[in-house]
């Protein structure tokens, strides 16, 4: 009875190289850099024990493992919310660079090289430049933030991210008086991103997103380098992604290679694809319907077949107290 007709993009589980194996070379190189001293620290050992059930330990670069030692765990919590199992958060993803189906990112993202990684910071800043990821992260202490994530397709999760406020990075780049928006770009790498090779993709690459400067500077806006106490899996936007918890998931751009401060509202990929469906602001709002998915309610994942985990959607995804002030005086049915 176990007849399965897997999609062509699927490879049997026997052919999948475990993450621990294909990353072991990097780990070997990384471990050489930190030398044995770091490995002997008790903090290192603590970091190796998974903090959440079912977490496959990722093989982190040395700088990340070092950062874990003084991470502020549970700096932001989601009281009364059950955390989505790691397996679901890492195997149910929209990351169209790796394919259109929810399972495609986990199946196809493993081979994306995330080390070395550089991020260009440019535009209306005093200190533009091209920065190695570890240099970008070095001055910042990591925090664990447990945030609700709400997709515009009406499903949601609760995910413990590891990262630091985007505001800290922007301040270091010294925005000029002209800076009013922040624009982001995802990597273009058709060799490792099969979705970018598709001739039938409706999105244009690189994937681009943007925020108004005050949204970007808001203390809840996070640049994440990890989740569930480990590095980000590639399908979740390794090695650097944005998390804006009061907006629909598509605003939280993954695998960032460029951050530009601009005077004008930046171009965004989804707005270009279907402006009536994906506005620039994209705040979670049960009162403003998406043309295809009602936003009044959501399915919190995992959602069983006959015990669907349906719940009412909250304005600003439950973060209204913190962020509603950013939009005072705006008509959010027009600026959706």
């Amino acid at each position: 009875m176990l007849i399965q007709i897997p999609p062509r993009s699927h490879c049997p589980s026997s052919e999948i190289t475990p993450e621990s194996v294909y990353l072991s070379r990097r780990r070997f190189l990384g471990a050489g850099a930190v030398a044995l001293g770091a490995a002997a620290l008790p903090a290192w050992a603590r970091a190796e024990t998974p903090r959440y059930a079912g977490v496959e330990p990722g093989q982190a670069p040395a700088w990340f493992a070092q950062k874990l030692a003084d991470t502020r765990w549970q700096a932001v919590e989601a009281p009364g919310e059950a955390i989505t199992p790691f397996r679901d958060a890492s195997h149910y993803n929209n990351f169209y660079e790796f394919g259109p189906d929810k399972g495609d990112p986990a199946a196809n993202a493993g081979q994306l090289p995330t080390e070395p990684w550089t991020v260009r910071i440019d535009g209306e800043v005093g200190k533009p430049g091209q920065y190695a990821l570890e240099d970008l992260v070095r001055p910042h202490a990591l925090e664990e933030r447990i945030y609700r994530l709400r997709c515009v397709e009406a499903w949601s999760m609760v995910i413990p991210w590891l990262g630091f406020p985007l505001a800290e990075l922007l301040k270091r780049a010294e925005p000029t008086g002209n800076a009013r928006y922040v624009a982001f770009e995802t990597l273009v790498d058709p060799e490792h991103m099969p979705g970018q090779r598709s001739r039938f993709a409706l999105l244009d690459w690189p994937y681009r997103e943007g925020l108004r400067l005050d949204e970007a500077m808001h203390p809840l806006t996070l640049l994440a380098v990890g989740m569930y106490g480990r590095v980000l899996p590639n399908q979740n936007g390794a090695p650097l992604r944005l998390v804006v918890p009061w907006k629909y998931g598509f605003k939280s751009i993954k695998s960032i290679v460029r951050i530009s401060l601009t005077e004008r509202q930046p171009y965004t990929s989804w707005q270009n694809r279907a402006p009536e469906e994906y506005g620039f602001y994209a705040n979670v709002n049960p009162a403003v319907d998406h043309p295809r998915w009602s936003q009044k309610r959501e399915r919190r994942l995992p959602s069983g077949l006959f015990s669907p985990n349906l719940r009412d959607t909250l304005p600003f995804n439950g973060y209204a107290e913190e962020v509603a002030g950013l939009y005072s005086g705006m008509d959010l049915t027009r600026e959706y």
Partner: protein
Amino acid sequence: MKHLLWRCCVFVAALLPPPYWLYQAWTFALGPDPGKVLLERLGQGALILLLLTLCLTPLQRATHWSGWALVRRQLGLWCFAYACLHLLAYLVFVLGLDFAQLGGELQKRPYILVGALAWCSLLPLALTSNRFSMRRLGRRWKPLHRLVYAALGLALLHMLWVVRSDIGQWLLYFAWALFLLALRLPGVGRRLGHRAGTP
């Protein structure tokens, strides 16, 4: 009964997928949002069965094997059964049986309306697929059953509207449908039969 084994095989092949998917959904083998996956598979299944049903007449013409036509009604009814399950999955897993919402959804979301119309155009075909109706409708039966082309067009439009980022898979179905329709153009169909040695 002619080709009994063949008909039984088609029956079993069409019957098995939904209970198997249900079992997978039950065991979370379909991921954390099984209702959504089930919904999509049933919809796709209905479309594939519709396209398969429309393959039978050209196949019959090309090969002269009577087995093709013998399963046409069966496959058509299976298509309707999948469409009904797809509709049921929508009502249960997406609407949560909140029928007050249904009216609003039909008004606001054209792709849902188009899907409903596709289902509505299959309904009379399923209801009149028995011998009694065929006899009663007589010469009107055939024109009525041309509604299948409307159902096909509406189903494809319904699916196109759901696509979020990559249109590749939809184009495959669309090309398949175009091919089947082209085979039904008067000139083309005759040549197909001719090549296979039609008198």
